[in-house]
C-alpha cells in the first residue's frame, strides 16, 4: 500500500512540501507540480532539506511545469525523475491513493 503525494506550492513560500515529506511513508512517491517544481532545484536553501527528507520516498517533477518556468533538468537535485502528463497518470495508477498537498 502506498500513496502518491502531489505538491503544487513553492517550498520557499509555504510549508507544503516539508509537511508532505514529514507525513510520507516508506515507498511513497512525491510528485512536484506547478510552483512545487522549485522544490527540486539544486543549489537553493531548500535543497539539503529536500535531499535529506526525500530519502525514503521517490521524488518526481512534472516536466511541462519545469519547462514553463525555465528550469532545465540539469538544475534538479540528483535522484529526482522528470515525468510528463502520461507519467503523472501512470504514477496515479501505480499507487493506492493520491493525496494533494494544497
Amino acid at each position, binding site marked *: 500500500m502506498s500513496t502518491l503525494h502531489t505538491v503544487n506550492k513553492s517550498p*520557499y513560500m509555504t510549508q507544503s512540501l516539508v509537511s508532505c515529506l514529514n507525513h510520507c511513508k516508506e515507498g511513497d512517491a512525491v510528485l512536484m507540480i506547478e510552483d512545487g517544481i522549485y522544490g527540486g532545484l539544486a543549489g537553493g536553501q531548500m535543497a539539503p532539506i529536500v535531499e535529506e527528507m526525500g530519502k525514503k520516498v521517490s521524488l518526481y517533477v512534472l516536466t511541462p511545469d519545469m519547462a514553463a518556468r525555465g528550469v532545465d533538468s540539469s538544475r534538479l537535485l540528483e535522484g529526482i525523475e522528470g515525468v510528463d502528463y502520461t507519467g503523472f497518470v501512470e504514477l496515479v495508477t501505480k499507487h493506492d491513493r493520491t493525496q494533494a498537498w494544497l
Partner: protein
Amino acid sequence: MSDVKKFLYVNRKAPYGTIYALESLEVVLIGAAFEQDVALAFLDDGVFQLTKSQETDGIGCKNFSPTFRALGDYDVTRLYVERESLEERGLTEDDLQEIMYEDEDDDWAEKPSICVISRAEMADVMAEQDVILSF
C-alpha cells in the same frame, strides 16, 4: 510635474502557479500610460519571473516573460532584483533574461534594466516610494 509620484510594483510570487505575476505586469503596462515614475521590485519567489528559457506550450498558459523586455519602450527601465532572494534559490544573475532599454538622455545607448541589489538596498528603495503596489 509636481503630481508625478514614485510607484513601486513589488513582485513576490513565481509565474504561472498563480495569476499574480501576470496581473502585476498588466497593471504596470496600464500604469505606464500615466507618466509616473515607475520601478519594479522582484524578491522572494518573484525572482523566478525573470528566468531565461521559459517555455509554456506544455501547460497551456501564455508565456509572458518576453513582455518584460518591452517595458523599456514604456519608460519602465528599473527592475530591482534582490540578491539574497536569488542566492536562497540557487540562482545567479546569469539565470535571468537580459532586459535592455535605450537611454534617451545618453544618445539612446542600450543599458540593462535589471539591477541586482542587496536586501538592505531593497528596503531603501521601498522607503523612498510614494505608492507601493504588491503582487
